[in-house]
């Protein structure tokens, strides 16, 4: 069980002080059902590959890590984004599979062209990766610019596709197969709890309650 999800007492709190025992009895099955549903969300964390080969997965993971790097907080790597993408390409993002196949080839060519001797993107140094990835992103930004393309045949959509999928895999509710252990939500300051009570933040904590504008209570 994941500690971030509400337990029975949290659902009781939702009912407020006015809920009667009879009301609870009548409605408990639905609330329990909702709670159980919430608990299932913790069962993410796919670790088996279904679409990518191990080599491809290593490259995709390294590319995703350029979009959301690991630093003081977790990045795409720790969130298990590559596993999210792998599962997505098997199911709801399956149309994007050719984009990855072409995009990975292009990334390989760009790596070889910029840094001869570096066998693959994932083997480059962090500084080299940034340079290679900048090229990939810039090509996507200016697909019709006429600028010399380092990797002819690269899909202009690869960077955009990878970016959207990485964001999904980093920030989706874990029920969707990414954001492992809520590391993505934690990295952006989102409390992974499933329910909240006011006050929510800095500005509402001392709110005195709504008051009419003095002297302007008459109808306009």
């Amino acid at each position, binding site marked *: 069980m994941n500690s971030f999800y509400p337990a029975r007492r949290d659902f009781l709190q939702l009912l407020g002080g006015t809920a009667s025992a009879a009301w609870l009895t009548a409605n408990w099955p639905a609330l329990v059902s909702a709670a159980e549903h919430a608990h299932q969300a913790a069962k993410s964390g796919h670790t088996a590959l279904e679409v990518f080969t191990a080599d491809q997965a290593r490259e995709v993971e390294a590319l995703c890590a350029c979009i*959301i790097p690991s630093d003081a907080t977790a990045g795409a790597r720790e969130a298990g984004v590559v596993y999210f993408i792998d599962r997505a390409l098997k199911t709801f993002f399956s149309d994007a599979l050719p984009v990855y196949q072409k995009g990975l080839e292009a990334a390989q060519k760009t790596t070889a062209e910029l840094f001869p001797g570096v066998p693959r993107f994932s083997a480059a140094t962090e500084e080299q990766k940034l340079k290679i990835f900048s090229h990939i992103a810039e090509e996507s930004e200016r697909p019709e610019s006429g600028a010399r393309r380092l990797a002819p045949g690269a899909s202009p959509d690869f960077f955009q596709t990878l*970016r959207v999928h990485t964001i999904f895999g980093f920030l989706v509710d874990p029920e969707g197969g990414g954001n492992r252990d809520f590391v*993505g939500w934690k990295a*952006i300051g989102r409390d992974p709890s499933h329910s909240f*009570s006011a006050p929510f933040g800095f500005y509402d904590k001392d709110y005195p309650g709504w008051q009419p504008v003095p002297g302007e*209570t008459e109808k306009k």
Partner: protein
Amino acid sequence: MSRPMVTYKPSDEVDFVIIGSGAAGGVLAKELSTNGFRVVVLEQGEYLREKDFTHDETKIFVQSLLTNKVNVHPVTFRKTPEETARKQQAVLYGSCVGGSSVHFTANFWRFHEIDFKEHSKVGDIPGATFADWPISYADLEPYYTKVEWEIGVSGLAGSSPFDPPRSKPYPMPPLPVKGNGVVFERACRKLGYHAYPAPMAILSQPRTGRAACMNCGFCLGFGCEVGAKSTSLSSVIPMAEKTGRCEIRPNCYVHRIETDKNGRATGALYFDGQRNVHLQKAKAVILSANGAETPRLLLLSASNQFPAGLANSSGYVGKNLMPNSGAIAFGVFDEQLNDYKGPAVSRIMHDFYELDPKLGLYGGGGLDARFDFTPISFALNGVPPGASKWGAGFKQTLAHNFTRTMQIFCHGTSLPVEANSFSLDPDVKDAYGLPALRMTFRDHPNDLKMMEWMKDRALEILDAAGAKTKWAPPIQEQQFAVHLLGTCRMGNDAKTSVINADHRTHDVKNLFLCDGSSLVTSGRGQPTMTIQALAYRAADRITTLAKHGEISA
């Protein structure tokens, strides 16, 4: 969980078959079955329950768990009738029991008195088919109140000096204020405006077997797991089923309304989940399929007797689409708002509901302080222009801004324009081989100008609120609609409207339409409250007609 307590055979001639179980269809089902009639509701989507709802955006936004699926029901779009439309997801609507009320944000304003008689006040507007309603705010007021008390609306009566008269306070207090509401309210006060607690169709207190809002923050786009959002699914549909006279039948794609030689509707033809075709017979038919699918269904029901489509002697079926205009401004604050918690909106203001004619603008709008992003949609669309899109800079922006960003959303009028419409695409077919829905739309120039004006006010408010960074995307012509209004409008003149004030079509005596298509003007946004008030009123009118023998006679 609740199950239908009654089932009918398609060959059973029930009193009413209702197409669509959303905001209007749910209310009509509840009212008519409570009044003793036998009702079948045919819903295109699935019958999902609270336990089926999820915060998983891959299911909601990628796989369209709750909404129309364009791979089955494609939509095409063009700006003007001269263009050939191309496939584009131009329309989003609910496709499950409860319809769009399941995934909506739950903003629940009443329209104001002016919305019903604005044409008389301002006169004709070039390029618009502007008209008054055949009913007034006073006619609808008792039904607005009924909506608030039956489905459950949170709010504070008397808190806006611009509010129309009301006969009763709200049944429960407003939802908790959020950080965005506090800074918006302070800024409005500084500028002489009047922010007030947003009326929301979300329970602030437990009520009639439903839990109060747990502030999970997943309202817009999502179904509510605890039933706190006052959807048709959580409120009126269970009441309809409890009568023992109403069957909610999901997975039914209605594609034709049948008529007899006398020009009367005899029932609804639909595909079931296995694509078998059935005719649900009924003494009267009510379309509440939304402002896109109701006119499409009428057009699909053309026959030798009704060559331009059913109930379309006026030629107005599908025309005058009004999706409401919109503008948005963003602000980033020094401290954490944490607006991802709680319903999207907690404060609104209606100071601009009726703009000063000296501005040279028609109509008006309402502004709300909100945060309607999920973590994913924020990363995709919530960061300032010019911010890094990847790498350490991108991650830092997300980490700083996610908890400190708010939006001001400006909702406004759309003028009715005849060319703006839903029609049948002559080339593109859906997965059943039927003509796809085609949307033709270009904003009336007034609406774009008004949104420019509103956007500037929103930025001023963010300034006064102390936003450290602020920006607003440029106003653009709309190519995407969720408020599907005006496409079978109500009126006394059968030449310029499709239904009368009783929601009965001018052409077919036992065919009624009630949903967003019935609206004559667009208000200033947030139409669901008015759609439901109309549905309660329509149910009263239809009941009276039926009891006087004026429907089946």
